[in-house]
């Protein structure tokens, strides 16, 4: 129960529990309905009553009395687990949840939304899944996307590697959208995979009829069955419920706070389009085919990496702080072609002296870092800063975490950062790759 002090005492005094039908009497009116729990962030001093019409109202408890009309049953949520049929002619797909809800049940009696994540819940909410594959479903952990930490990437990568060595034909990962592109980059670096690894989520929660969860999930399963053995993100390709894009895990970014088509390929094109249950691969894209790679897991990472955005007036203290605090590497989101104010450059030299790799990316997001054009850039290069090329700042951050996990040697880390590990950078900038 999330009622606070006064309301909690009131409820206890009258011997009431959540779910009971109660009557609250005020001087000139009384309300009868089911006592509901109160949202955690709401103020004290009010009861939430669900009237018989279905409406909730808040009733201030001052100068009221309450009476119990009928004890409520403990609401029974969800359904009995049911055997999910398996079909030997279908591929086996593993579905892993990291949090958020791919399926949830609304209890209309109390109005509560209960997240559910068992295979049978998933199939109940999306029965058409059975047309495509057999499923192995696991809730890996349950955290909000914004609470994701590098250590969780490791756990996910290990779990997925287990599934793959157990012979799964493809993996779908349900993920909150906020940090989905960090996870997709991390898995790209940590895993060499013989099967598709597809990350998906929803911009509209699955408790609403307009949710994009179902289409994203089905299309992800279709992608996981395909020939594209890469780590990718599968989300809506437009505002329409019409087609999804499959984005390369290292080249994708969340670009809008709320739209369904928020995920975009940055400095790249999507790998494939999924429409009417069919995967159409982008003809300009040479993808890694199913079975081409052997499974390989390199999940060690270093999570003490700083990520600093430059801005007019930024003080060198930002850099000094991270060095003082023992950060092992720094990713800078510079301006334009990859610049910071000149007075930061001495701090970069200090980082170089202390063998802390510093990688430069651009807050433009689109385009390539090039520090040879202006003298500031040349000075930054001279201070040992490495170009992040056309990588997104987020992918660069994840890559540096991973590179520092792979080696303690400054030069070796710098070498890894300049090696294309998982298609995270390209040498050529296409005329088409902007704002799409």
């Amino acid at each position: 129960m999330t009622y606070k002090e006064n309301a909690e005492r009131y409820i206890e005094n009258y011997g009431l529990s959540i779910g009971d039908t109660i009557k609250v009497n005020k001087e000139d009116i009384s309300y009868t309905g089911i006592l509901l729990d109160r949202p955690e962030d709401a103020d004290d001093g009010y009861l939430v009553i669900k009237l018989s019409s279905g409406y909730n109202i808040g009733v201030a408890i001052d100068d009221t009395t309450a009476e119990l009309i009928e004890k409520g049953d403990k609401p029974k949520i969800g359904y009995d687990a049911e055997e999910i049929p398996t079909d030997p002619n279908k591929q086996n797909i593993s579905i892993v949840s990291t949090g958020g809800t791919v399926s949830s049940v609304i209890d209309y009696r109390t109005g509560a939304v209960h997240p559910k994540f068992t295979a049978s819940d998933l199939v109940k909410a999306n029965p058409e899944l059975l047309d495509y594959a057999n499923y192995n479903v696991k809730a890996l952990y349950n955290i909000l996307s914004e609470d994701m930490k590098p250590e969780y990437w490791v756990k996910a990568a290990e779990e997925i590697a287990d599934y793959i060595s157990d012979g799964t034909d493809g993996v779908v990962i349900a993920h909150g959208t906020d940090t989905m592109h960090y996870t997709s980059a991390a898995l790209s670096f940590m895993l060499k995979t013989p099967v598709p690894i597809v990350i998906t989520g929803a911009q509209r929660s699955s408790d609403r009829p307009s949710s994009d969860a179902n289409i994203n999930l089905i299309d992800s399963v279709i992608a996981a069955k395909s020939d594209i053995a890469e780590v990718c993100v599968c989300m809506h390709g437009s505002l329409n419920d019409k087609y999804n894009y499959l984005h390369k895990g290292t080249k994708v970014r969340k670009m809008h706070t709320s739209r369904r088509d928020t995920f975009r390929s940055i400095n790249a094109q999507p790998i494939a389009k999924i429409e009417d249950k069919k995967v159409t691969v982008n003809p300009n894209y040479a993808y890694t085919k199913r079975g081409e790679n052997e499974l390989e897991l390199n999940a060690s990472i270093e999570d003490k990496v700083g990520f600093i955005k430059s801005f007019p007036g930024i003080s060198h203290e930002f850099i000094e702080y991270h060095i003082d605090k023992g950060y092992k590497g720094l990713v800078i989101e510079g301006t334009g072609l990859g610049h910071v104010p000149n007075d930061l450059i001495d701090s970069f030299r200090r980082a170089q002296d202390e063998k802390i790799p510093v990688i430069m990316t651009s807050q433009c997001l689109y385009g390539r870092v090039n520090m040879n054009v202006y003298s500031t850039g040349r000075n930054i290069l001279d201070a040992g800063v490495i170009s992040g090329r056309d990588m997104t700042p987020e992918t660069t951050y994840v890559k540096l975490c991973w590179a520092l996990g792979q080696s303690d040697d400054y030069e070796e880390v710098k070498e890894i950062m300049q090696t294309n590990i998982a298609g995270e950078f390209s040498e050529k900038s296409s005329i088409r790759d902007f704002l799409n």
Partner: protein
Amino acid sequence: MDYEKLGLKMGLEIHQQLNSQHKLFCPCKTELVDDEFDELVQRKLRPTQSELGEIDRAALQESLRGLNFKYENFEKHTCLVENDDEPPHSLNEEALDICITIACLMNMHIVDEFHTMRKQVIDGSNTGGFQRTGMVATDGYLETPYGKVVIESLGLEEDAARRVETKDGFTEFRLDRLGISLAEITTDPSMHHPDQVREVAYMLGQILRSTNVKRGLGTIRQDLNISIAEGARVEIKGVQDLDLMAEIVNREVQRQLELIDIKKQLQERNAEVLEEIHDLDELFEDTKSKILKSAETIKAVVLKGYDGLIGREVQPGRRFGTEIASYAKKRGVSGIFHSDELPAYGITQEEVDKVTEFLDIGEEDAFIIVAHDEDIAISALEEVKRRANLGLEGVVEETRKALDDGNTEYMRPLPTANRMYLETDIPLFKITQDRVEPIANNLPELPDVKQARIIEEYKLSEDLATQLVKRQEADMFEAILADVDVDATPVASLLAYDLREIKREGHDINVLTLDHFKGIFTLLSEGKIAKDSVRKLAVETIKAPDMDIAEIAEKNNLVMMSDEDVSKIISEIVADNETMVKERQMGAMGPLMGMCMKQLKGKADGGLVNKIVREEIQKLI
């Protein structure tokens, strides 16, 4: 009809669009648009899990059919919120305050805290698959000439998107109306006479119109709940014309009585709807009926014991067969053929006999034919069977649509208990005494009270007063007269009539402020402009709203001449026409007035001109 004996019970539900500047949960304007849309977005809706229950592939498929939608977006008039691509913004407090006003006028109890709910609606009219709605007040009443009527609840909710068309498997909606704030008023079902319903609807309309609500077609929608003792509850949607209310009630009572009688006869005959769907393609191979010939397939079902009853009239011009057909139409057919109306539509007696023989049915039995594509024909006949079976139970609980002639037509089943849960994207909203009291202490006058007072207080004609109130200009009228000592009639007629014309001429009348009006009528009261110049001066003020009114009058030659100057001009004109005056004597008055006014219009008062012309003529004769 003896309504009491029949156990007639009625309740009203009224939806009124509020005139808040912005929508309930986003900053878009609350006006409908007829422009071409800028973006068309294609969506699906999916019933949520708790509505599906068991794994039932068939039920899911069924429910997903027809859940394909297109939404017309407008760059200027709509935003991402309507398109379900951005969370709702905070509750529109202006709309809430209008509801609080309405609640006070209906003696209601306002809730302590307003909770926005999601109410599942998956017909596509709400992009999210739910309507946002909340309870503002409960337990009010209205005193009517027929006794007290309880107002059960007042809700504040979002209006739905406007349906444009259904084509190629998609239903298209325009997003302009989605999110306009709507007050929902529900009475208890305690009304027993059609005249009482009409009176209550009228009174509610008066109350609403005294507050800041939208006017005009489609801004208020009245639904009627109705049942008789042996019948069932039916909700009739969209009763536009209050004068039709009694007729609708009478025809619905008649319909329920007829259906009850049909039920009794069906039971006596041990009537039964047979399961099997028969294929009649071969029988009609050489038919002359164009409708049958053009169809992919012709199918039929047998209704044992229904003969004669399908053709039975339940409302003027509507038969039991029409009721059955309206269910079938929901599955995409344009109609059905039933044995009570055949031969007709190019189907011959000979063909009817062949069908009768083929189906092997007796004299009391009936059949219904549907001609269409295979799956639609089957789906439609399933509905025919369902509705025919319901005939054995008498009246069916339904939502029906009011038709222009007072009849009603089936729309959909009655909604089951409201499926609502909290809209977690919007914080709970406390309605404190500090908010309610100033509103409660400053309630608007009801329109008829205001009208009567204005007639009395300002000696206006009833017509002018009615127009002022109807056009919501009464407050401006009173504000002008509170400060300017001027005849009320020209003020009222500018506000009630001229403004509308000026607007129609393409001027933006919203530019005019109270100060402008006061300036114009101060000039009139000081005799500086003529009554005839008021309209012209208003137009010129719209064109130069920042200029001093007196200057505008000056610049446009609207300032009146001094009496001496007027006299001088008139005596000159009269002198020029001396011959005519001599000939016609006072008969020259008319033509001379015409000549003088032509020159003096707007610069001299007509009465004064008349007086001087008369004097000048008299001097000459």
